[in-house]
């Protein structure tokens, strides 16, 4: 990590895991030759990423009257957002308060979150839910349905009050459904699918003034100039740090971190990742996939090889994950088909509440169906899976990074959760900070289109050479390394 000037992160901060550090230190994918033939385009606001944060940002910026381009690596909606199961937090209950939500979030993050960001997050909560309902999102209701029925609230690990709102256990899918519809119907938003960002553009003053995209279908580079760029590229689970399986979607390859860092943006907590305690270890075809925390919220127990419960299932995720790893390390795990884990006692749960599978745990039902087994009769084997990138680009409460003109929202940003995230706070974050970044980016003066270039890349290449670091590795990765993809070869073909 020597090449990276110490000023870019807090002094003495633990370094990121080596594979991530290597990506951050790698050379750019493109050079000036790629720019020379690039097709120029313009937008008032450019959003990178087609998940929840990107959609919310695009809607806010377009709502403020700006022409928005949303470019995404896969297709609109292919994201971690659609995979979210458990739900979203917002302090709307009678016994709840913004203060409770604030305290829970800070405590859950071991007091390492940025309190200004947390304040913003929890205050936005109720309005975010109202906004989502306005877009047409369905939430589960309390039993006595009908007019005036209240939203059903569940308790999440690490919280003092039931605060999770959900749509069955496919909350992210439902959320993305309405977001995608709104984005695609908006006259001022142009969606560009399969157009990953491969580099940012900088002006002489070091501000971000656009990005270079690669259009996979037409095999060409696009030079997109825009006075404001919003990074909403999500996380990095597909790096499989520490050899862990991951719950993340295919596009989670830390691209946003690489681009922001090369431009000089400050990043934080890059050594901190969340391992979801209940990733599937067996059946094998589902390995790495997730069993929603909703299952534990509903009352399912974790049981070790001796048939004992060993932890309060509703403690914060890092604690539960650590407990499972400890059981396994100390020989109390269960091995099946060569995979080690502990039991998630769905038969016990479903014996106590037989209708759950049809009502609240439809995601679990589908999962079991895919693997061809019956969770009423057989328990899943679970083990921690790489789930969430806690750290990311440092932002202010408006979502702006330390680089003027560059915003970040969602999993790519850092500070909202500190070093551990509570369930349900990510979905709240992407809407809250996505909209903030969008609105703030929309307020940047439009006239100031700068031509933009990649002088920051040249500076970076000089720094690499000066530090004696290899210049052959190139990033962003774009696709996981088991799906080898060479941008250069693709573009040359």
């Amino acid at each position, binding site marked *: 990590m020597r090449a990276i000037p110490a000023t870019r992160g807090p002094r003495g901060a633990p370094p990121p895991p080596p594979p991530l550090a290597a990506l951050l230190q790698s050379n750019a994918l493109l050079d000036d030759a790629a720019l020379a033939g690039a097709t120029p385009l313009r937008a008032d606001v450019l959003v990178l990423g087609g998940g929840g944060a990107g959609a919310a940002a695009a809607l806010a910026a377009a709502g403020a009257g700006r022409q928005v381009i949303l470019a995404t690596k896969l297709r609109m909606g292919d994201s971690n957002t659609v995979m979210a199961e458990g739900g979203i937090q917002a302090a709307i209950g009678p016994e709840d308060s913004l203060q409770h939500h604030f305290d829970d979030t800070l405590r859950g993050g071991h007091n390492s979150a940025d309190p200004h960001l947390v304040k913003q997050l929890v205050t936005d909560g109720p309005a975010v839910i109202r906004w989502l309902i306005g877009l047409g999102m369905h939430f589960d209701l309390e039993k006595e349905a009908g007019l005036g029925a209240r939203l059903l609230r569940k308790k999440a690990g690490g919280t003092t009050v039931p605060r999770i709102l959900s749509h069955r256990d496919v909350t992210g899918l439902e959320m993305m459904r309405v977001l995608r519809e709104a984005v695609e119907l908006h006259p001022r938003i142009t969606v560009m699918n399969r157009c990953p960002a491969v580099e940012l553009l900088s002006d002489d003053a070091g501000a971000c003034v656009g990005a270079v995209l690669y259009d996979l279908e037409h095999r060409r580079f696009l030079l997109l100039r825009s006075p404001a760029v919003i990074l909403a590229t999500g996380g990095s689970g597909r790096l499989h740090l520490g050899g862990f399986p991951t719950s993340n979607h295919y596009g989670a390859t830390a691209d946003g971190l690489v681009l922001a860092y090369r431009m000089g943006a400050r990043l934080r907590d890059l050594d901190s990742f969340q391992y979801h305690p209940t990733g599937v270890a067996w059946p094998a075809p589902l390995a790495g996939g997730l069993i929603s925390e909703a299952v534990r919220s509903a009352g399912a127990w974790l049981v070790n090889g001796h048939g004992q419960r060993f932890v309060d299932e509703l403690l914060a995720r890092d604690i539960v994950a650590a407990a499972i790893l400890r059981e396994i390390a100390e020989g109390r795990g269960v091995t099946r088909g060569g995979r080690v884990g502990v039991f998630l006692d769905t038969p016990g749960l479903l014996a106590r509440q037989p209708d759950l599978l049809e009502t609240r745990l439809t995601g679990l039902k589908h999962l079991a169906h895919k693997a061809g087994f019956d969770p009423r009769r057989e328990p899943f084997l679970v083990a921690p899976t790489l789930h969430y990138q806690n750290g990311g680009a440092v932002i202010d409460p408006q979502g702006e990074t330390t680089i003027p003109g560059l915003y970040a929202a969602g999993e790519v940003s850092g500070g909202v959760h500190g070093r551990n995230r509570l369930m349900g706070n990510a979905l709240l974050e992407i809407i809250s900070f996505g909209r903030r970044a969008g609105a703030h980016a929309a307020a940047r003066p439009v006239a100031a289109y700068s*031509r933009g270039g990649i002088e920051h890349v040249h500076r970076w*290449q000089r720094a690499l050479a000066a530090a004696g670091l290899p210049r052959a590795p190139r990033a962003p990765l774009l696709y996981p390394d088991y799906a080898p993809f060479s941008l250069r070869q693709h573009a040359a073909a």
Partner: protein
Amino acid sequence: MDTLNQVLLYPAFQLGADLEGWLAAGGGQGLIAALAEPAAIIPTLREADLRGMGGAGFPTWRKWQAAAEAPGAGKFVVCNGNEDEPGTFKDRHLLRWTPHAVVEGGLIAALATGAAHLVLYINPHQAAAVAEMRRAVAQWQASPWLARMERALGHPLDIAVVETSGRYIGGEETAVISWLDGHFPFPRRKPPFPAQSGVGRAPTLINNTETLAHVPHILRHGAAWYRALGIGAAAGTKLYSLSGDVMRPGLYELPMGTSLQELIFVHGGGMLEGRDFKAVFTGGPSNTLLTKRDLDVALDFDSVRARRSRLGTGAMIVISEGTSIIRKVAEYIAFFAAGSCGQCPSCKAGTFQLARLLDRIDGGRGTAEDLQALESLCRILPGSGRCGLIDGAVTVVESSLHTFPDEYAATR
């Protein structure tokens, strides 16, 4: 780097506003020599072959002599520190780090011309330079030097730091006068030359910051010493602002007449990522491009002119193979279009049209007609403005058309 031949950037002189330190390091000696024999100042500069570093390379002694001989009271000496064009970043360094060399050069100029005003005209975008120079001037004013100057001049000497308009055009010498007279920095036609009628109609000497910074050293060590610093027929040292696709961009002080090859490949550490050298925009960037064939050119005013280009401010923007020349030219023309003061219709509309056409061509949207229009503008526009802005803009465009026709071929 080798500090042997460094004068302006000599480490012991990089003091900021520290008059004591400057004097202790040998500063003030030039002024003492000048005070001892004011009549020898101009002949010494002539002997030293000091040239104007603001871009034109005009012999400094001639301007000084014209201002000295011009009849009139209340003469002005102006240090031009407006520096604003892409790729040039030398004057801001001198103003910030060796302000005393600059002021001392200005005092010697005042002595040689009999001026009553010394104005340090500095771009407010370089806030650190303005602040440092304010401190430096205050130190001179509080020192016994001012009284000695006034005794020698026989009248009071006013020293002022003035912030420029921050506009590129504000650096052109007649625009400097207009601004100091309290008007918008519009250039005007010459003659009358500033030496005849400048600020408040008084004879005015305007020199670039770097030009003035050389003066105390020349007066202190003598013309022969200065001449010997240069290579071949060239005299002294030059500040080169090296930028673009090189490993070590930066400000280099080298003997005047150092080859382009040496600047890029020795001092600049070679090309970025080992790419091939393609061309250089000299500062500017309003001059004819230098190409591979010119790598051996000696970077002094006369040798570069022999290659039909200009040394300009000593800015060298290096371009590698793979980088689009059209893109770079489009970028600079957009800068000139934004910088045009709008007074002369041919410049206002001309730079705008050039920029628009280049933008289309660069973006792959250009047509054969666009290219023809570009070429015909290059024929019509030169010489049509009050100042040199439009000529410089056309020179770069024309040079790119001429030197890199292949890049425009797709449009043809």
